[in-house]
């Protein structure tokens, strides 16, 4: 496998890997590091790549596992990359700005979801995977995925309608 072959293979899903990493790790830099790590791992195992049935699903699983590991180690170090912790300090003005920019608000709401739901929502609503593909990545059966997805969507909708109706405060 040459460099060009590899780039062609990786090109269609490298953004998906990056977005999933960013969904889980929140920070852009962290997500870039994770993506690079995943691509490097793929490149190092390029001899075995032909054996994989679905390189994309495999990479997404790798990304998921890598990011969850990363989060665990960050929590162990007591270093939170989730930047929801600085919201308390700058109170009203920032929140008002956020309220106006309701698209940003959506990402805030998704950030608060449990990891499993985040992954499924990301794969389904942004990357438009079908349930079988998601099942390969998260190693769950399709019904469980459906349930998790429905929960995530309902939580988001509830929070969105609340903020829409009452504003933030």
């Amino acid at each position, binding site marked *: 496998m040459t*460099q060009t072959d*590899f*780039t062609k293979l*990786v*090109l269609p899903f*490298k*953004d998906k*890997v*990056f*977005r999933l990493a*960013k969904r889980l790790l929140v920070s852009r830099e962290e997500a*870039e590091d994770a*993506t*690079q790590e995943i*691509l*490097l791992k793929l*490149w190092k195992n390029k001899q075995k790549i032909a054996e994989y049935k679905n390189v994309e699903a495999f990479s997404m699983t790798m990304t998921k596992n890598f990011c969850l590991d990363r989060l665990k180690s960050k929590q162990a170090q007591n270093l939170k990359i989730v930047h929801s912790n600085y919201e308390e300090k700058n109170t009203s003005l920032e929140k008002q700005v956020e309220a106006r920019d*309701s*698209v940003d*608000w*959506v*990402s805030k709401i998704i950030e608060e979801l449990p990891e499993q739901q985040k992954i499924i929502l990301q794969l*389904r*609503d*942004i*990357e*438009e995977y*079908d349930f079988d593909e998601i099942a390969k990545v998260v190693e769950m059966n399709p019904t469980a*995925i*459906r*349930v*998790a*997805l*429905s929960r995530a*969507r*309902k939580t*988001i*909708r509830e929070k*969105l*309608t609340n903020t*829409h*109706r009452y504003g933030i405060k």
Partner: protein
Amino acid sequence: MVLNSIEKLLEKYDNGETTIKEEQQLKAYFAQDEVAPHLESYKPLFQYFNTTKQEDLYTKDVPAKTKKSYIYQWISVAALLVLSLGIFTTQFGDTKKTFSDLSAEEQIAYNQAVEVFDLVGSKFEQGESNIAAFGLMSKKLSEGAENFEHVSEFSKATNKILKSKKKKQNKNK
């Protein structure tokens, strides 16, 4: 009509029962500017889905490089260096070989060296002629040695005579 189907789709969507096509319909609907007022709260959600997919891109290079290519590059660089050095020394090293190109000090040193060599050479020749004389002498010496044999033979004969003379004298007593 359209609104009705959208509402149904939204309900299905919330239950996680929509297909990807139906979800795309929903995204297309909420991408419009005009949305039914009671569905306004959904708008940012689907807009968010659309924009993240388009805007959040991994911009860095794909790290598909091997160490091997680097090694070959450095080898070629080294080879080039060696080659150019070789050409340089053969081209420009030879120009200093004629006598006039040397500096005054170097010329003096050269002349002195030549003189010394000449002197050593002449002494050596003299020495050689001396060696030739030695050779002649040794030749004569060996000739002399042969002559000694004649002498010793001669002395043998004289001894015999002397002995017989003594015997005669003893008898006479």
